C-alpha cells in the first residue's frame, strides 16, 4: 500500500530525514517509536503532504502512484489520513460543517453521492459513539478551546468519518489520561479493517498495550535504526533508547 524508499527531507535548511525506507501493507499495524526530535512527526507530515517540508531525495509510492506528486487534499481524497500531534484550532468553522465538507470531498473523489446536513447527522450520531463524544461538540468550532484530550478524540472522530485506507496517528496518545487513551485506542481498533493500514507514531510503549502492532520501527536522528516485532516495544520500555542509539552508532 505504502512504499517509502530512501526518503530524505529537510525543513528550514535543516536535513531531518536521512534515508528512510519502510513498506506498509494492507491489514498491517506499524509502530514508529523514537526519542523526541528524531523526525517522527516530520515523516508523518511528509506522508500527508505538508508543503513546509522539502523532500530532497527518495521515493514514496502509494497504491502504485507517486505520492510526492500529489497535493495534500488529493492524498486525503485517495485515503490517507494524518491524526496530528498538534491538532489545529480553527475558530469560526463548526465541527459539523468542517466534517461534512471533508466527508463530501472524499465521497466525491470516490464517485459517491454527497450528503446533505440531515443525512450527515445520521452518520455523525453513529461515529460520535466510537469516541464517546456528544452531539454538542458538532456545533463548536474545530478544536477551538478543546482540551488536549478532546482534540485527540476529535482527530479519531475525523478518522472515523473519513474512513481512510492509510491512517497515520502522530502521538495521538501523548497527554491523554488512561480513560482517554482507552477511548482513542478502542476507536482505532474498531476502525481497523483487513484492507486498511495504520501507522502509529508514539513516544511511549503504553499505547501499544491497546493497539497491538505487527511491526515496530525505531527512528533516531532521521534514520530507522531498528525494526522488529511487537516485543521490540517492550524491550524499549525496559531499556530506553540509548542502547539502541549506541548500538546503531548513530551520530548527528
Amino acid at each position, binding site marked *: 500500500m505504502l512504499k517509502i524508499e530512501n526518503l530524505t527531507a529537510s525543513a528550514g535548511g535543516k536535513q531531518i530525514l536521512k534515508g528512510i525506507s519502510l513498506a506498509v501493507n494492507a491489514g498491517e499495524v506499524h509502530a514508529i517509536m523514537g526519542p523526541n526530535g528524531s523526525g517522527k512527526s516530520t515523516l508523518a507530515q511528509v506522508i*500527508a*503532504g*505538508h*508543503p*513546509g517540508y522539502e523532500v530532497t531525495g527518495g521515493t514514496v509510492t502509494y497504491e502504485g502512484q507517486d505520492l510526492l506528486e500529489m*497535493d*495534500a*487534499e488529493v*492524498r*486525503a*481524497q485517495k485515503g490517507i*489520513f*494524518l491524526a*496530528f500531534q498538534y*491538532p*489545529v*484550532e*480553527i*475558530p*469560526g*468553522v463548526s465541527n459539523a*460543517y*468542517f466534517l461534512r*465538507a*471533508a466527508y463530501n*470531498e*472524499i465521497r466525491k*473523489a470516490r464517485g459517491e453521492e454527497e450528503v446533505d446536513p440531515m443525512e450527515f447527522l445520521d452518520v455523525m450520531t453513529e461515529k460520535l459513539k466510537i469516541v464517546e463524544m456528544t452531539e454538542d461538540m458538532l456545533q463548536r*468550532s474545530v478544536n477551538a478551546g478543546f482540551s488536549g484530550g478532546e482534540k485527540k478524540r476529535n482527530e479519531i472522530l*475525523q478518522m472515523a468519518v*473519513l474512513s481512510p485506507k492509510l491512517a497515520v496517528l502522530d502521538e495521538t496518545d501523548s497527554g491523554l489520561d488512561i480513560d482517554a487513551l482507552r477511548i482513542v485506542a478502542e476507536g482505532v481498533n474498531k476502525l481497523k479493517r483487513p484492507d486498511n493500514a495504520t501507522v502509529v507514531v508514539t513516544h511511549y510503549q503504553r499505547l501499544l498495550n491497546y493497539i497491538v502492532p505487527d511491526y515496530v520501527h525505531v527512528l533516531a536522528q532521521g534514520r530507522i535504526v531498528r525494526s522488529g516485532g511487537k516485543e521490540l516495544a517492550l524491550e524499549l520500555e525496559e531499556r530506553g533508547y540509548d542502547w539502541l542509539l549506541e548500538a546503531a552508532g548513530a551520530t548527528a
Partner: protein
Amino acid sequence: MTAHSKYRELFEAAVHGAAAKDWLPKLKIAAIEQFEAVGFPTTRDEDWHFTSVTPIAERTFRPVKLSATTLTSNDIARFTYGQDDWHLLVFVNGRYEPALSNFAELDAEAQVMTFSEALKEAPELLAERLGTLAPAKQAFTALNTAFMADGVVIRVPKDIALETPIHILYVTDAHANNASLHPRTLVIAEHGAQATLIETFASIGSGTYLTNHVAEVVVGDNARVDHYKVQREDGNAFHVGTTQATQGRDSIYHAFSFATGAQLSRTNVYSRLLGSNAEVRLNGLYALEEAQHADHQTFVEHIAPACSSREVYKGILDGTSHGVFNGKVYVDPQAQQTDGKQTNHTLLIGDGARVDTKPQLEIFADDVKCTHGATVGRLDDMAQFYMKSRGIGAERTRALLTYAFAAEVLELIELEPLKVALEGLLFERFIPPDSV
C-alpha cells in the same frame, strides 16, 4: 466656487422660509455656518489622515427630493432579516414610508417617533436634546444638522425594557442618484431602560449618492442600549456616519458596525463614559473588495472611574481595497481603575489591499489598565494545511477560513437573528455556491 459655499447655496434654497419652530432653524443656521468655517476635512487633518474625502468634496450632492416611493414590502423584504415581529421604520430615499413600516404595540409608554412627528408631539424633548451629544463641530455632523430632513426619535422611559428590537431601515434607489441624505437618530434610554436598535443602510439599484448619518444615544444610569449598524450601501455610494453616545453610571452600550458597502465610507463610533462603572463595547467588521475604502474611527472617553471599554474590529480586504481603523481612547485624570482593551485584526486577501491601523491612547490617570493590539496577516498556513489534509481543496479552504475569520467577530452580536442573517451574507459572499 468652493465645495462649502455650494452647500451654503443649497442650504438657503432648502431651509429658507421653512415653517419650523424657532430653535430648529437657529440650530441649522449655526450648523451651516460652522460647516462653512471648517470646510471638508483634508488628509492634513489628523483624524482624516488615511481617508481623503476629495471624491465627496468635488461633487455637489443636492439634498434628496422627498417623494413617495413605489417600492413595496416585497422589495425591501431582503433587508429585514426575516424578522416580521421587530418594530420597523422604513425610509426610502430619506422619506419615511408609513406603509412599509410597522411599529405598533410598543411596550408601555415608550416613544418611537419620526422626526416630523416628534416636532409636533415632543418639540421640547427635541429642542433640549438634539445636537447636545453630537454638536455640529465636525464638518459632516454640521452638514447633517444643517440638512437633516427626517429621522427617528426613540425615548425609553425609566426602568422600561423594550423586548422587541427596533429596526430603522434606510433604503435608497435610483432616485437618490447624485443626492445627499442626512438621516438623524436620537435615542434616549432613561435610568434603567433597555433597548435594541438596528440601523440598516441598503440600496436597490445603483447610484452615486451620499448618506451622511448622525446618531445621538443617551444611555442613562443603569440603562443598556445595543446598537447595530449594518452598512450595505451601493458600491458607488458614499457613506459617512457618526454615532455619539454618552453613558451614565452602571450603563452598558454595545455598538456593532458591519460595513460591506459604499465606495468610500467613514464610520465614527464615539462614547463618553460619564458615570462610574459603565461598560462600552465597540465591535465591528468590514469586508471590502475591489477599490472600496472603509474607515472606522472609535473614540472612548473615560471620564468617570471604574469603567471598562472593549473593542474588537476585524477587516477582510480583497482586491485593492483600503481599510482604516483608528481607535482613540482618552482616560481622564479622574478615571482611575479604567479597564480598556482594543484589538484590530485584518486579513489581507487581495495583493493590492492595504490597511492602516492606528491605536491612539491618551492616558492621564495612573491606576489604569489599557491594552491594544493589532495584527495584519494572511490566512494561517497551519489551518490551511489541516483542512487540506482532510481532503478539502485549496480554494474552498481559503474561502472557509476567510469566512471563519469574519464569523468569529459576529459571535459578539447578541441579537441571534441578526447574527445568523449577517453570517448568511458573509457565507454567500465567501463560500463558492457549488461547493456547499
